[in-house]
């Protein structure tokens, strides 16, 4: 009996296929997706999505640093700085590596300083959505 052919470019969409593709617990998916953008999707069998997430988020992070954006510290005295720091830490490993490399000091006199912050914060927030999507995939939840 002929087996149904799987389209080359199709991604797992149903819970069964997601479970089939994934060998990752929801908690592990969250941690892996947080650490490296797209990594959980790769492990869950969605290589194309993983590549897009990885490339675009790292590009946004790099552009943000290139524009002179600042990697904010957790500073409870200033709620907006605290929230910006939380958003940037949502990018995981790239944020850690940048901190070790002493990048992201922030050049406030640069005309692109605020642009840089926008890219850094947006990249982190996007990764939050990607982490939630990875968790749903690992749980086998259908998106729509």
């Amino acid at each position, binding site marked *: 009996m002929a087996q149904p052919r799987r389209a080359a*470019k*199709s*991604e797992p*969409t149903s819970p069964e296929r997601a479970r089939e593709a994934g060998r990752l617990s929801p908690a592990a998916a969250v941690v892996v997706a947080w650490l490296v953008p797209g990594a959980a999707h790769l492990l869950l069998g969605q290589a*194309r*999505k993983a590549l*897009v*997430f990885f490339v*675009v*988020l790292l*590009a*946004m992070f790099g*552009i943000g640093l290139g*524009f002179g954006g600042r990697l904010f510290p957790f500073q409870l005295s200033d709620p907006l700085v605290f929230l910006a720091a939380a958003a940037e830490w949502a990018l995981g490993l790239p944020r850690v590596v940048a901190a070790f490399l002493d990048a992201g000091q922030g050049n406030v006199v640069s*005309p*692109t300083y605020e*642009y840089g912050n*926008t*890219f850094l914060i*947006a990249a982190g927030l*996007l990764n939050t*959505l*990607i982490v939630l*999507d990875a968790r749903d995939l690992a749980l086998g939840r259908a*998106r729509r």
Partner: protein
Amino acid sequence: MTSHLGVMILLAACLAVVFGVLLRDEGADQGRLSVRIFVALVGGAYLLGWIMSFAFG
């Protein structure tokens, strides 16, 4: 690139690609949604810019 418009287009492109890929599973659907989000973001910014220009300019 330091122009508002250029950076806004760059940010809109990045957001549109991620949202398009995140919210759809098929390649063609992802592309269509990405384009729609990109147009909405850039068009919305232009529209708001013109409104603010007439209102406060």
